[in-house]
């Protein structure tokens, strides 16, 4: 499992995940170093965030599974504005959009700090950062293809 060490917990600079029963499996998988998504048992459609039924076929038979954690860079931005007080010390921070190999488009952070030289379609893979509350936050790093 590719994990990143937690910095001083009191200095954590992102909003912590809110307790949410629907997303509990996601955070449980993350603790194991896996980026999870929901998959339909009837038509195999993969989606994240999860929902009560499959958005393709409306089946309510769905399961969580570990994706490959691999994907490609779809876009990226640098936040310079503090929408939360806690992020101020970390400005500017990046948010990337990643298209997972399994399909879903998700938002995350790139651990590579320098955004110069990024290109659409660059290969990325998930890494897991320990955050307060015995949780792990999936982020992404550039990956040689």
């Amino acid at each position, binding site marked *: 499992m590719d994990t990143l060490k937690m910095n001083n917990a009191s200095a954590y600079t*992102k*909003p*912590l*995940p*809110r307790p949410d029963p629907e*997303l509990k499996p996601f955070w449980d998988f993350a603790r194991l170093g896996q980026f999870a998504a929901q998959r339909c048992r009837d038509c195999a459609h993969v989606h994240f*965030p999860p929902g009560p039924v499959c*958005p393709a076929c409306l089946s309510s038979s769905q399961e969580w599974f570990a994706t490959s954690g691999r994907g490609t860079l*779809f*876009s*990226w*931005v*640098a*936040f*310079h*504005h503090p*929408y*939360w007080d806690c*992020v101020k010390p970390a400005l*500017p*921070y990046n*948010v990337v*959009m990643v298209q997972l190999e399994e399909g879903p*488009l998700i*938002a*995350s*952070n790139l651990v590579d700090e320098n955004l110069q030289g990024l*290109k*659409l379609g660059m290969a990325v893979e998930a890494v897991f950062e320990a*955050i307060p509350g015995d949780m792990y*936050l999936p*982020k992404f790093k550039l990956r040689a293809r």
Partner: protein
Amino acid sequence: MSTPINAALSRSVAVVGVGNAPYGSFPDKDEYALAAEAFTQALQDSGLEKSQIDGIGVCRIPSYARMGEVLGIDPRWTLTLPAHGRMSGISIVEALAALHSGIAAYIVLLYSNIGRSRRMNYGGDEMPNVWDPWGFTSPGAGHAMMFRRHMELYGTTTRQLAEISVAFRKHACLNPDAVMKKPISIDDHENSRPITAPLRLLDYCQINDGACCMILTTAERARDLRRPPVYIAGVGARDNFRDSSLPNFSADFWYAALQDVAEQAYTMAGLGTQDVNALMAYDNFSPTVLFSLEGLGFCKRGESGAFVEGGRLALGGALPSNTDGGHLSNSYMQGWALNVESVRQLRGELGARQVAGCKVVQYVAATPCTRSIIYTLD
């Protein structure tokens, strides 16, 4: 493509009264007070009696019932829509359908916004979403994601994006109601502080208080009223909800939805891009204007950056757009002020910012609920 909209709706309904409360910061007023100002002005503009109003649609106003109480109206058609910019176009399309069907005869649409005085932040804990743990928040960030992708795919530059903010500020300087009236240059845009890079402060709409009102009726009734009727010649609609968890983001820049909307609206109106004298493009963030131009077919896909260069969207350019200054520089009225401006352009009331010989004005909102409305004089 979508089933065509019933052609009989084209030019069957007209806007007969418009009004707006002042734009700015009004901590001592509430939504109802601002809406009442806009309504009084629109009613006077139309020449109707208040007792004739039998439909009321409210947007961003907490209670339709309180609004009716404040104005002393007991309608037979009531619609309430939330505080999203995409709801202005939706309201107007719904009013068109209701008037055409005869469910109501005179509809008033009211929008009021006290977001500045309420100190709205538009992100963070005010708008919780699933991506908060990664810090992905705020409507502007979705547009920044799209614009970065547009830059990488097509070579669009921030200096091209600046053309939009600069043109609209130029228009705001000619609009006595506008909030932002200090001229800006492309370099000012490039030097403004980054918010969600590649977007900067001057790519963001402002946040201000204000209200707008539109009164609509059937074309037949409109002919007897005080002002020249402004007809709804065409409308188009398409929503994209499948990636709603990525807020204010579209992986294809709403291109497919805009193409669908363009086909509906131009077919219904019997018009095309070449007929449009002025464009009113929803500009909560400057990139949406680029996406609108491409999706409606004013330029080819990926070429909007070059298209807007040289002041093409400014008054005097080939496609004057957002002649009131838009959301970027006039007022954050979430599409409503652009529709009011469409009506005033067609009536020829706008003095220094009037588009000469204006006969066709198109409103478009490229959003998760994409809408376009084509207004004509005949």
